[in-house]
């Protein structure tokens, strides 16, 4: 990398510094008597990509917030470039050279890519923003990073993956020595993740240190060279990433014995399910202009059918079309041999179809309503007589599901927004189970929830299938799709491109079908050298409105 990656005028591309970028020793932090961090040690070397993993509540967020000046540590020391630092607010950390990229993109959708990258630091001419210089600098920057994007495009019109990379470019342009990436990939697709990793590697090769947080375990081996595992506020393990076995990592995160985990596998799915013969759900010829072309699939009672595909392949659209939430030009959906009229959610619900949507916040929870009211939401008319709701009936229903799904809330009256992601997801699953579905469409059911809740949800999917439901599962996680499904239907560009079952249902095979001829690159393989970043697959800006995830 001969180019300096930083473009702030007048600032050298980082002071020369030997030794670690960050040295954290004995950091402790507690809130109202509850220990969030207990003596954490952590070292970040230049050019390193350091994974920070742990279950929700392990202290990852608190740790990052201590590094970036959101919280002050109660005890312990943070050294940045050798000097002790105590940032009092995130802007100070950023000025010093510690940038953070969050899962939810903190950029302005209505501004262009270039404007976002230099927001607040625009090049000026005669006191006005020099748009040409702005666009030129931005174009140079994204090109060096290997991001294919028109810097004059409005950010909101681009796919989430590109937006995430723009956030990264912004971090880089601020002359960052340390970039903290807090679950940057949780809303990205496989291909986008690869590009993001390419950019990250380019950065690392230039001497920047990266801290990487992800719930997707595969990604850790693909990107990181070092790993620190947090559990209950303690750093329980630090070492080279490649030396750490996957089961061992899960064991460290959960605090269980390796033998236990091995026996159970890393996902919580059991063997395949008893299946009926006749399909319970039968879908064919689903057409949605510009999205789906003649998609069809079947699911028998007790069968979990996986739906695989890359960004824009139409997985979520397929589920939404089946559920009647998407206007179709043609669609034939049958449940138990009875045709369901398309384009009406309430008719689909009555026919016994339920959809757990991917976006828990926007399409799932009603945040300010109680756990109880959220669970009862879809069945309110059933819980009422003459329009008057029966609280006794609702309470009985809610009580049943809270126990069955082990929803952890202080009471059924607690507001849903106060629950953890995993428990919110369980509330939503309860909402749909209350409708007594025969067909359950699950769109990324374990996205963004901690490992423990993930296993519970996976176990629940098995249980539901065993009870005779037909389940259609969309997951971006290879393991989940392969281990959780009895059969996987693969979508490509809005049409079915293949199907895997039996012995052919393996990660390697699935990857080959997904890649569609591109030589397979196993995600759990060793991290490629720093030079490969330049070869990263470019992500093309999608057309406005076309940024729905597959």
């Amino acid at each position, binding site marked *: 990398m001969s180019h300096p990656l930083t473009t702030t005028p007048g600032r050298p591309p980082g002071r020369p510094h030997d030794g670690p970028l960050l040295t954290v020793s004995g950091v402790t932090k507690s809130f109202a008597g509850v220990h969030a961090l207990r003596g954490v040690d952590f070292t970040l070397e230049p050019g390193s990509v350091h994974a920070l993993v742990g279950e929700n509540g392990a202290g990852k967020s608190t740790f990052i917030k201590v590094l970036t000046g959101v*919280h002050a540590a109660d005890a312990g020391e943070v050294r940045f470039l050798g000097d002790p630092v105590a940032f009092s607010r995130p802007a100070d950390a950023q000025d010093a050279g510690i940038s953070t990229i969050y899962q939810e993109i903190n950029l302005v959708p209505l501004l262009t890519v270039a404007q976002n990258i230099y927001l607040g630091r625009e090049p000026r001419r005669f006191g006005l923003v020099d748009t040409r210089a702005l666009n030129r600098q931005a174009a140079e920057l994204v090109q060096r990073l290997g991001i294919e994007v028109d810097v004059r495009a409005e950010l909101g019109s681009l796919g989430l993956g590109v937006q995430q990379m723009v956030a990264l470019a912004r971090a880089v342009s601020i002359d960052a020595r340390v970039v903290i990436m807090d679950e940057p990939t949780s809303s990205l697709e496989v291909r986008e993740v690869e590009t993001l990793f390419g950019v990250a590697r380019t950065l690392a090769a230039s001497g920047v240190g990266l801290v990487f947080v992800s719930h997707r375990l595969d990604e850790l081996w693909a990107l990181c060279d070092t790993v620190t595992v947090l559990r209950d506020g303690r750093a329980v393990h630090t070492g080279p990433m490649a030396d750490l076995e996957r089961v061992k990592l899960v064991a460290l995160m959960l605090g269980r014995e390796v033998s236990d985990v091995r026996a159970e596998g890393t996902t919580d799915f059991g063997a395949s399910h008893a299946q009926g013969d006749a399909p319970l759900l039968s879908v064919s010829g689903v057409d949605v202009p510009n999205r789906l072309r003649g998609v069809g699939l079947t699911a028998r009672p007790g069968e979990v059918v996986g739906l695989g595909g890359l960004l824009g392949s139409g997985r979520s659209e397929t589920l939404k079309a089946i559920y009647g939430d998407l206007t179709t030009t043609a669609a034939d959906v049958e449940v138990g041999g009875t045709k369901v009229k398309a384009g009406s959610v309430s008719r689909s619900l009555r026919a016994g179809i339920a959809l757990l949507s991917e976006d828990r916040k926007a399409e799932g929870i009603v945040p*300010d309503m109680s756990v109880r009211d959220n669970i009862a939401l879809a069945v309110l008319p059933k819980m009422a007589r003459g329009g008057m709701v029966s609280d006794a009936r609702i309470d009985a229903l809610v009580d049943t599901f809270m126990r069955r799904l082990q929803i952890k809330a202080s009471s059924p009256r607690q507001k849903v927004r106060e629950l953890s992601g995993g428990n919110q997801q369980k509330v939503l699953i309860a909402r749909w189970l209350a409708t007594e579905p025969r067909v359950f469409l699950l769109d990324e059911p374990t996205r963004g929830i901690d490992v423990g809740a993930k296993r519970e949800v996976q176990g629940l999917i098995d249980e539901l299938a065993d009870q005779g439901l037909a389940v259609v599962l969309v997951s971006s996680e290879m393991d989940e799709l392969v281990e959780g499904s009895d059969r996987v239907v693969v979508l490509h560009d809005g049409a079915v491109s293949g199907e895997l079952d039996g012995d052919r249902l393996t990660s390697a095979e699935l990857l080959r079908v997904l890649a569609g001829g591109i030589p397979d690159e196993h995600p759990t393989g060793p991290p490629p050298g720093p030079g490969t970043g330049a070869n990263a697959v470019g992500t093309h800006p999608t057309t406005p409105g076309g940024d729905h995830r597959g």
Partner: protein
Amino acid sequence: MAEHTATAAGTAPAPPPAAPPGEAATTSRRRPDGEWFRRNGVYLGLVALVLVNLAITPNFASTGSLRLQMVQVAPIIVVSLGMAMVIGTGGIDLSVGAVMAMTAAVIPLYIGYGTLGAIAVGLIAGVLSGALAGSVVARIGVQPIIATLAIMVGLRGLANIVGGQIKSIRDPGFRELGSGDLFGVPWVVLVAIVVAVLVWVLMSRTTFGRQLMAIGGNARASQLAGLPVKRVLTTVYVLSGLLAALAGVLLVGRNQASDPATLGRLVELTAITAVVVGGTPLTGGQVRVLGTVAGALLMQLITYTLVAQDITNSVAQMVQAVIVVLAVYAQVGTRKRRRSRA
């Protein structure tokens, strides 16, 4: 979660409450914070103002004075309750004042059909206006503020054309409604009480109320959960139109006259104020019925207190403005803190 607790530690340096460690869940109920103030501030204000008046305003507790206050505030309460339901869906209804004027305009025209007949026609006018607003909002997807702004302007004009000049109404039925009473309670006040009870039942006990609040809390999620979003939205605006028309009827009875040009002018703003001061968040998702009633009473009492102290109505309006800003500040403050916890 952790930061949530941190906020608690930051604002209340008292020893940590005996909540189980790690369960930050119960924090919101621990301390009187912005949320608590938003919910209950209106009652505090009301009690304080009553006490102040008992101390400084002569004859405040007299029957005549109380009766006058209640009769004046009753129509406001009725309109505000409709407004509260609309705001509960995340919308707003600027047309209520114009609906009142329209009702007032049609009553003299149909007074020949008897008191009840004229009232029925007036209420139908409100329902039709509400149905129009609701359809435009729910089915075409026009923003509520725009849809009802158009109706506010247009309907006021139509009311002037239909009703024309101020007309006095010499109908014994309307006179009884405006100035009569039942066991000493004015009819106007009785109507407001009944409406408040009905709206409370509707919001807290019925499927419709739960669905309304769910839609206000997350419309997209409600739609995916199979809720009849369009029907509920349309119905809410119809109810708001109906209640506005009812308030118009009450005012015509009280004034013994119909003046479409001035009746109900700026009532929409008074109603929004009562709702917001009463603790219903403008973002939707909740409807605070008792709070709205208290909010209307509070605003009425502020005006009364100042006027009783020989302070002009103009100053009273400025004081009301301050109250509104405080109420909205309490809401915004709560939301900000909530966001910082996330």
